[in-house]
């Protein structure tokens, strides 16, 4: 088995996951052999640009892929010694929302416009816990307190709430049935910075209070740097680097990660040109052979275009899928 679990207890393990879609008659492999460990109690940041496979991964974890364009999934998603991909619909349904819950990017769109917040929560309690009317009332009140929303919100509809309150309501739904795992799909991307800060703090507090393990997907490196314990980088449907937060941000080993970090503008970079990665992220219908990043990589060798680098432990707790890890030269004048 690839991927070390080490001494850490993992709640969710992804093994050699492939997901194929059909786009304009062409077959597109959105995930091409993903491996990922979500450890107990951690916030695991998942970083990648559009098309890297972040959302597909989240949907696949809950076995939610469907529709005319979906072709197939292979591989394993292990949760409590079961492969979620092999479960029948009624079994996986008991896990969705109850044991593995999800928070989406745009709460306004992901809440039903015809239901109040209370009706949303009630439905979850009823179907997952079989809780009837009266005890449900106590639980809904408790949930609102947890996410710091006033009780009046229960009778309101999503469109009556601000973006931040909608996201709190979404989170209340997600934690309603005491899940072990929380999947967060760009939960603060659509929010203003001050509201984003509040939501991030809420997630950190809930993680501590409820012992959640969180898979935090974002394209925003700065946000991930602030909240994640560990970080994984996705490129071309594969995980290319995985490390503890500071290790990844201070000593990235994969050239893509390193270049991506250097391309983020900030006050500290004033007066210097941003580092640019030439080209664009590969389309899932035409992922380059070998290392998917090689056409854009400044240190790519012949080998990179032919052989596929596997994700390997480079040193303790830091894995990378590259034949030349850490060999990208530091640009002049860069401070650590």
């Amino acid at each position, binding site marked *: 088995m690839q991927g070390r679990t080490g001494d850490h207890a993992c709640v969710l393990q992804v093994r050699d996951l492939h997901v194929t879609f059909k786009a304009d008659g062409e077959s597109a492999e959105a995930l091409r052999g993903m491996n990922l460990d979500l450890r107990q109690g951690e916030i695991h940041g998942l970083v990648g640009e559009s098309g890297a496979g972040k959302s597909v991964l989240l949907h696949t974890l*809950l076995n*939610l892929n469907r529709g*005319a364009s979906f072709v197939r999934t292979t591989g394993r998603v292990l949760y409590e010694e079961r492969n979620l991909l092999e479960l029948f*619909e009624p079994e*996986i*349904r*008991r*896990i*969705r*929302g*109850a044991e593995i*819950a*999800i928070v*989406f990017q*745009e709460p306004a*769109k*992901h*809440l*039903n*416009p*015809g*239901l109040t917040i209370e009706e949303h929560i009630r*439905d*979850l309690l009823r*179907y*997952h816990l079989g809780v009837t009317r009266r005890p449900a009332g106590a639980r809904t009140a408790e949930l609102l307190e947890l996410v710091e929303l006033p009780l009046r919100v229960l009778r309101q*509809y999503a*469109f*009556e709430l601000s973006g931040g309150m909608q996201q709190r309501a979404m989170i209340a*739904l997600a934690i309603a049935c005491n899940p072990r795992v929380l999947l967060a799909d760009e939960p603060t991307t659509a929010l203003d910075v001050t509201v984003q800060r509040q939501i991030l703090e809420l997630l950190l507090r809930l993680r501590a209070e409820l012992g959640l393990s969180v898979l935090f997907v974002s394209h925003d490196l700065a946000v991930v740097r602030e909240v994640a314990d560990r970080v994984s980088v996705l490129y071309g449907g594969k995980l290319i680097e995985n490390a503890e937060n500071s290790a990844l941000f201070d000593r990235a080993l994969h050239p893509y990660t390193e270049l991506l970090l250097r391309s983020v503008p900030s006050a500290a970079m004033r007066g210097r040109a941003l580092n640019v990665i030439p080209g664009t992220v590969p389309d899932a219908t035409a992922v380059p052979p070998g290392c998917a990043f090689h056409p854009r990589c400044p240190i790519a060798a012949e080998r990179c275009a032919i052989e596929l680098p596997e994700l390997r432990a480079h040193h303790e707790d830091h894995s990378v899928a590259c034949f030349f890890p850490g060999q990208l030269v530091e640009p002049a004048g860069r401070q650590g």
Partner: protein
Amino acid sequence: MPSLRFFLGKLGRLIATIFAITSLVFIVLRVLPGDPARTIAGLDADEREVAALRAELGTDRPLGEQYLSWLSATARLDFGASFFHERPVVDLIRERIPLTLSLSVAAFAGALVLALPLGVAMAVRRWGAVDYLGMGFSHAAMALPEFWLAILLLLGFAVLLGWFPLFGAATPRHFVLPVVALALSRAAVLVRLVRSSMIEELDKEYVLAARAHGLPEPRIRYRYALRNALLPVITVGAIQFGYLLGGSIVIEQVFSLPGLGRLLLSAIYRRDFPVVQGGVIVTAVVFSGVNFIADLLYSAANPKIRMR
């Protein structure tokens, strides 16, 4: 429930619409060139006869005065007397309208009963067998004019099979074929609307979210998606009801049913203007009323509007 302000606003609009319709009818009949008295009396009538008729009809008075008395008469449902039947128009309408309304209501109910489950089934299994059959039905029923469908039904089920009576309105069995004819045509339109509206809802993010929350599929379909998918159906449904009122004119003719439609049609042939006026106004008022109810239903089902 809709707020009082919303209700009053819609009620105001309803009244304004009815007012506009009656005024329009007045303009068409009295203000536009053409002398009703001359038309009624006939080309060979002499000038004295016409003048007498003008006085009787009141068309010799100033337009403003005519308009006011027209409005007050209309408000009292006094549409005058039929030239042909020589009875008050309002009595004629009162006799005929229950049949037309029950025909329309039954056909509307039938159309809904057919279109809702079928449209949902088509949307849930897009491009499946049910979807193709449903689309085939919809195409066929929309292509066929109602009267043609009615005649086919008559031929098949009344003439050949003899299951239903040919014409008349004596028993409930007499109404089966006309109701089916009307219902099928309306269902053809509604089923497409339900299907597309439902597909649109099922593709929305909140449906994905409900699945991700582990809710059962029937709950997601019916409680979540269908509820929201019905909103456009309410609005279009009201317009379809208007078509039913119009469609019943032809259907009543085909099945020889003594309804408002037939009354109107024969009145048009006979140039029986008071009946035409009364019939047009009553139909328009019923249509506006149905739209008013649809507006209220729409707002009751849609919290965004309700809150305004």
